[in-house]
Structure formats: structure tokens, C-alpha cells
């Protein structure tokens, strides 16, 4: 059984290494991820938002929905702890 697991893991490793050869070079301006909207963000963000930090402009302005969801996830975790833990009947170790 152990050999079967090792074989599956080895095949998975081979698959990942094989797939890695097709990835674009690091920092390649013609990589698929960089030719869609990144260029326009880099060119427009200072003019559009007066924010020199492009990361902040993308995070809070262009991708505001994403950030809204992230904050909601964190708040949901806090609310869950706030609502559930004080009602647990099991004695807690102090």
C-alpha cells in the first residue's frame, strides 16, 4: 500500500514538473496574466486615483468587490466565534 501511495505521489510530481516547463518566464511582459488588464492599471492608476501605490489602487478601487468579500469573510469568522463560543455548554479548561 505504501508503494502505491509513493507511486501516485511520484506521478503527481512528474505531472507538475512537466507542467512547469510551459509556464511563462518570471516577469515576462507578454505572459497571459500581464497582457489583459495589468497594463492599463499600471498606466492609469495614478491618473485615475492619485494613488502612487498601484497595489492599493487595485485592491480598494478597481477590485473593490474582492476586498469587500475578504473583509466580510474575516468579520464572519469573528461573528461566528462571538455568537457560538459563549453558548457552548462543555466546561472549558481554564
Amino acid at each position, binding site marked *: 500500500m505504501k508503494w502505491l501511495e509513493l507511486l501516485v505521489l511520484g506521478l503527481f510530481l512528474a505531472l507538475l514538473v512537466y507542467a512547469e516547463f510551459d509556464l511563462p518566464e518570471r516577469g515576462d511582459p507578454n505572459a497571459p496574466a500581464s497582457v489583459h488588464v495589468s497594463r492599463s492599471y499600471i498606466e492609469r492608476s495614478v491618473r485615475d486615483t492619485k494613488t502612487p*501605490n498601484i497595489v492599493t489602487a487595485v485592491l480598494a478601487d478597481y477590485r473593490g468587490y474582492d476586498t469587500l468579500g475578504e*473583509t466580510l469573510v474575516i468579520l464572519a469568522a469573528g*461573528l461566528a466565534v462571538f455568537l457560538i463560543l459563549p453558548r457552548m455548554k462543555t466546561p472549558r479548561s481554564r
Partner: protein
Amino acid sequence: MKERYENPVVEGVARLMVPLIQIFGLYVITHGHYGPGGGFQGGVILAASLLLLRLTLGEEYEHRRFPPRQAILLATSGMLLFVLVGLLPLGRGAPYLNYAYLPIPGLAEPEARYLGILIVEIGIGMAVWGTLVTLFDHLVGGEAQ
């Protein structure tokens, strides 16, 4: 964890460090436009300052100054700030979260977006700050009221 940490050195250093940590947290939140930082990071730093106080001065003292109920109130009001600021542009027929159309007279479009980002970062900071303090208070296991 809940009792006061009876050590003058620890307590003195904590009392000395907390204001500096909090100023640094506010700086990280408001400086997100120009460098690394923003609401998430600044909120974590502000929460860390409160956790330091809770660990050194003890719950009995700290829960009077910043009760756990206030922490969850802070978190939800931060989230509410974010959502309401996103709603404001709807009144001018713009999409949700489009800060360029914040209904503030005499503000050019880039300035409005700059301001919108700042308000949203503050909202995120409050939400993260309150949430982390809430998590600590309840996971440490006290009667958090």
C-alpha cells in the same frame, strides 16, 4: 492569561510600547496610498497592541477599558462603513463601489477615488481590529461580557 502579569519590567515596557504600536498602526492604515500597508495590516497592528495590554495588565483591568462587546461593535461598524460608502455612488446612478461618484461637491474624480480608498481602508482596519480582538477574547476562554 487572564490575570495581571506581575512583573514591573514587562508591564513598564508594555505601557511604553503600546502607544507607539498604535501610532504605527494608524500610520500603516493611512499610508497605504504611498507605500506598503493598508487596512488589513494596520488593523492587525492595532489589534496586537490591545492583545499586548490584555496579556500584561490582565482581563479585569483591560475589559473595563475596552470590553469584548465593544470589539465586535467596532468590527461590524467598520464593515458597515465599507458597505455604506459603496452604496453612496448609487444615488448618482453610478455602479456600486465606484468612488469616483461619491456625492461630495467640489471634488474632482481622482480626489473622490483617493478619498474613497482612504475611507474603505479605515473601514477594513476597524473590521480587522475588532475581529481579532474578539477572536482573542473568546478563544482565551473567559466570560466575555
